[in-house]
């Protein structure tokens, strides 16, 4: 079996454009086959989105949602990295937190949101707290794996050269964890982005999830699709542009293979 080497053959740019275009085509086909109140087409949906933008409500709801996601993401990632690293480094910590980790991974997410709303009341705090708890376990698992895979020979080298502890953490350990952190950041951001809609649908009075539940009660498919699609586009941009760029930067030393010395 031949293992293809990455980047050895340049693929035409239309392949990726075609991938996105096929979604649009499928949507158009579905819209022509189904009655328009069940499946409005892309143009009709975009008209709705433009109207919402003109009224200023789309940005307001989108921002309310994004704000919750960003706060939960930042807090969850920080806590998850620290806990994951601690579990990877110490067998004691690993054993002590084992039960919490399994519980966190298996708990139905909806339970977290319902409990959080009952405990904290129907507030942003409750939604964000539940979101944080939702994303932490997967981050912990990834970072723990990364910590276990650390090349201790490099750490030994840095110690032998009397580098300060903080330098070893920042310049020897962290770069080895970066692939795991960036990877889990992308997946947990998209998880938070999906779960926030559920949180808003259950107990908030603004945000994309609230708008979707509002239009659901009105049986208005254009509204539901308008908000849903806008949210997908925003996440895709954040993921590809921001996190993708971060990932490329973090691994630029890997991308240089093949250049001859």
């Amino acid at each position, binding site marked *: 079996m031949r293992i293809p080497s990455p980047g050895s053959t340049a693929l035409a740019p239309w392949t990726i454009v075609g991938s996105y275009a096929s979604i649009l085509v499928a949507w158009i086909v579905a819209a022509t086959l189904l009655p328009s109140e069940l499946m409005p087409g892309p143009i009709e949906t975009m008209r709705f989105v433009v109207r919402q933008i003109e009224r200023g409500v789309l940005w307001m709801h989108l921002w309310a949602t994004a704000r919750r996601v960003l706060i939960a993401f930042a807090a969850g990632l920080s806590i998850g990295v620290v806990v994951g690293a601690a579990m990877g480094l110490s067998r004691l910590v690993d054993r002590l937190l084992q039960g919490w980790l399994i519980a966190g991974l298996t708990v139905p997410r909806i339970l977290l949101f319902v409990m959080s709303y009952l405990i904290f009341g129907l507030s942003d705090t409750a939604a964000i707290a539940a979101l944080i708890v939702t994303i932490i376990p997967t981050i912990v698992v990834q970072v723990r794996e990364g910590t276990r895979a650390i090349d201790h*020979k*490099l750490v*030994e*080298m*840095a*110690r*032998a*050269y009397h*580098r300060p502890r903080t330098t070893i953490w920042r*310049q*020897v350990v962290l*770069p080895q964890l970066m692939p795991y952190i960036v990877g889990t950041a992308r997946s947990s951001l998209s998880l938070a982005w999906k779960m926030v809609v559920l949180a808003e649908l259950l107990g908030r009075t603004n945000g994309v999830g609230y708008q979707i539940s509002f239009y659901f009660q009105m049986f208005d498919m254009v509204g539901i699709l308008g908000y849903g699609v806008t949210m997908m586009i925003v996440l895709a941009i954040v993921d590809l542009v921001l996190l993708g760029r971060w990932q490329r930067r973090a691994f630029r*030393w*890997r991308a*240089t*293979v093949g*250049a*001859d*010395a």
Partner: protein
Amino acid sequence: MATVVAQGIDKRFDAPGGGVVEALANVDLTVVDGEFVCLLGPSGCGKTTLLNVMAGLMEPDAGTVEIRSGEGDDPVVRTVFQESRLLPWMTVRENLAFVLDGPTRAKNVRIDDWLGRVGLAGTADYYPRQLSIGMQQRVSVARGLIVEPDVVFMDEPFGSLDELTAMTIREELLTLWDDIGCTIVFVTHNPLEATLLADRIVIMGSKPGRIVHEELVSDQVPRPRDADDLALWRLARSAVRHLELG
């Protein structure tokens, strides 16, 4: 400028599957100021363990290691490992800067000077993966010597290189050692490498790891040495006989 004195070193490891391996049993070794000593022995004779203990990377179960500096201040000790152990996400320049302290400008002047001395001028912005194994090991040697240490411990640094590359780097190492005037303890399993490099060869045997013989090369073959010198070959043959006896 420093002397390394190891006395009564014991080191045991738990053997896989139970039992204990006596890696080192009551080893005494003194390496005097500016001396180049090679630890020669078969795999598993404890030569790397002895090096790690002397370098302070490993605690012995018994015995003491003392590194005395002539000037009274703390001697600077460096280790060059078997693998280059360069940080792959840093360029050559960043890898060397990583072990230096002080202002960036002074660091860079020093790095450029040292890259020239190990034959790597112009590679400062390369990542380790873009270099051959031999060039990576040259960077690793430069990283060990760039602070001009008093003592350098080297653990088979040229063991994974092809012989042609190793030959050149050995010559370069001798030149650098001469320039800096440091004490070097060098682990190898290659008798010819040991005879070419060392003032004194310390031959080790296994089970338990101990010193079985010492050969004073500097008495028999003066420097500068020629790798093709028959006297070196004879010495290497004699060392091999001790290896077999040990």
